[in-house]
């Protein structure tokens, strides 16, 4: 056998099990508006076509999907037994509203009545699309394009479940909202879609967590996140990815920030067997600003891949990205960052930085910053560092009565500290810290 590569490229990396029969069998099919059915059909056609088109080798050479078998996963019917999640965030704060999903089905939805009275919508995508179709029609799959690539088309065709938040003009929500995307039964494919719409001058904080009920049930998430931040609005969005280590996580996540609006977007990457995420911020109007924080901790044989893009479409826009990765065992992390400045987006300020801390000899990080600048009066900078835990630091701390385990914990926490300092929500800081502590408990 000499043509191993030929064999593997001939087989589509993402395929089968998600055909027309599966599309027609989608449990939300019966209740959703016609336009969504059409969107699915269009996306499905694109998906079929994209399956025959080779994946972008530049993108996928670092993300190995050979062990991934889509046919092992399917969209699940609603469960009759309640699922128990060991959530990290849910008990840590008073939330103004909670939406929970299990295996792609909404199981809980509540919102403070005074917010509902102001016209705030917060709930599962299925019922909100049915009740407020006209509002959501132009927003759903507007910044994640249904024919963008194979993953996006796959998601758009089979989208099930997910949380929608709509905040009307000038409504300010002080307390955070909470969304849980859970996987319970073995072999479930989750296609949840998070859609956040802030009208002009609105403000909100949404904390979202993904979690599994068990440590070993294989799962698949083909997701999308769309954050539409209207003129002068302010959104804080946190997604803590905490699947078990047998879950595949593929996602497109886009935030669009309008004139004078701001978005603070924090990503925690703790779980998953393999995660490959596109995270894009679009600075769409003058004065728009975005702060992107990434905090990842990969252990064992986990592979976490983040392709981030900060696109400056308008002048006087600002973006600031900081990703911090900790790796241990044979884990791999890929960060591919890009700052794009469109022609005419003058006086923009773009920054991206990725720091990695390697706790073992066998882990590996690929950190690839990039700039594509088509304007001539901008300030764009990037940086990337990778280093190992300094044994002198460990010794110094141990000399003060601190055990090796505690010393490692302190050093890792210290490494994440700049991110924690940027996150204004105490519950999120606590949660990330706890997640880090739990991970450090394994095998140390």
């Amino acid at each position, binding site marked *: 056998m000499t043509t191993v590569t030929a064999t593997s490229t001939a087989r589509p990396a993402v395929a089968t099990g998600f055909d027309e029969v599966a599309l027609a069998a989608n449990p939300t099919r019966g209740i959703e508006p016609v336009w969504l059915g059409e969107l699915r059909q269009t996306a499905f056609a694109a998906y079929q076509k994209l399956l025959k088109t080779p994946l972008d080798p530049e993108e996928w050479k670092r993300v190995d999907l050979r062990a991934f078998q889509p046919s092992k996963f399917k969209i699940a019917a609603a469960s009759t037994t309640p699922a128990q999640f060991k959530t990290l965030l849910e008990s840590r704060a008073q939330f103004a509203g909670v939406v929970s999903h299990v295996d792609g089905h909404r199981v809980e939805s509540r919102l403070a009545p005074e917010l509902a009275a102001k016209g705030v919508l917060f709930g599962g995508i299925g019922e909100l699309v049915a009740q407020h179709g006209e509002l959501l029609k132009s927003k759903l799959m507007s910044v994640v394009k249904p024919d963008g690539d194979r993953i996006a088309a796959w998601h758009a065709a089979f989208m099930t479940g997910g949380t929608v938040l709509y905040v009307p003009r000038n409504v300010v929500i002080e307390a955070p909202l909470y969304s849980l995307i859970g996987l319970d039964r073995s072999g479930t494919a989750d296609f949840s879609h998070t859609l956040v719409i802030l009208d002009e001058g609105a403000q909100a904080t949404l904390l979202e967590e993904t979690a599994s009920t068990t440590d070993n049930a294989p799962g698949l998430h083909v997701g999308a996140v769309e954050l539409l931040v209207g003129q002068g609005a302010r959104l804080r969005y946190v997604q803590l990815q905490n699947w078990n280590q047998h879950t595949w996580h593929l996602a497109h996540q886009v935030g669009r920030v309008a004139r004078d609006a701001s978005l603070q977007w924090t990503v925690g990457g703790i779980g998953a067997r393999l995660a490959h995420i596109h995270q894009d911020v679009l600075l769409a109007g003058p004065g728009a600003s975005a702060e992107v924080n990434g905090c990842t901790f990969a252990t064992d044989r986990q592979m976490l891949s983040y392709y981030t893009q900060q696109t400056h479409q308008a002048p006087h826009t600002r973006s600031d990205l900081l990703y911090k990765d900790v790796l241990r065992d044979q884990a791999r992390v890929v960060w591919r960052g890009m700052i794009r400045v469109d022609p005419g987006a003058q006086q923009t300020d773009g920054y991206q930085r990725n720091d990695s801390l390697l706790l073992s000899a066998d882990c590996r990080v690929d950190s690839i910053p990039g700039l594509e600048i088509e304007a001539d009066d901008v300030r764009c900078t990037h940086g990337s560092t990778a280093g190992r835990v300094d*044994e002198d630091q460990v010794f*110094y*701390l*141990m000399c003060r*009565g601190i055990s090796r385990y505690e010393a490692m914990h302190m050093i890792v*926490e210290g*490494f994440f*500290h700049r991110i924690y300092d940027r996150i204004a929500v105490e519950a999120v800081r606590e949660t990330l810290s706890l997640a880090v502590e739990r991970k450090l408990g394994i095998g140390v």
Partner: protein
Amino acid sequence: MSSLLKVENLYVSIDDKMILKGVDLEVRQGEIHALMGPNGSGKSTLAYALMGHPKYEIVDGQISIDGVSLNELEPDSRARMGLFLAFQYPVTVPGVKVADFLRHAVTNVRNPNRKEGEGLIPMREFRAELKSRMDELGIEAEFARRYLNDGFSGGEKKRMEILQLAMLRPKFAILDETDSGLDSDAVRFVSEAISRLAGPDMAIIIITHHERLLEFNRPQLTHVMLAGRVVERGEAALAHELHDQGYAGVRLRHPEAAAEEQEAAAALAGKQPVLAK
């Protein structure tokens, strides 16, 4: 009863190179000792070996406190038994706040059997104690919120070591050239601070090239190292002689050790590996 730190016939190597060649030392809680000697004589090696630095291998001999051997213990266990080293070059730990670090350290040293994840000493109590120690040492309150040694000047780092000493109150404190790199005022400050901390519950082993630190902290005994051994012991007068006349006299009185010292220096200069003993 006062505790006894005992070093017997200690041989220590780094990367298979023998640095300490049979060191004996006895220090009783409450005493002040000076440990002197030219560069490369093994003073810092002894300090690190006492604390259990992983790169320093004990080839032979014994380190013990009240008859309990430390040889196989991790540095944190040694610290919990009452040993403390003020570093010559304190290490920077970015992102770790001084107060958080000290609260962990103090908790562990005062509750030596504490398991990971068990409670820390109460915040209110700890803060009050930290504040009064910082006031006594003339350290600004803002230090507690800074990251450990991150961006600290040389003098600030040494003050931080003294603050740790004051909070941890060890039975045996080793000060490794705490006076190096400091101007006279700073040395005087450190010197006075140590003399305030010294007392019947704390032994202090001062490693120094200079006499200034010993002004306020008069040692009962001065040990002089040369080529990995303690070659002389004497009272304060010995430290005074070394300060005035350097180590020429010591070398003359110990020609064998002086020859070994020469050999090691030549090997280092020529980057030739030195064979183990």
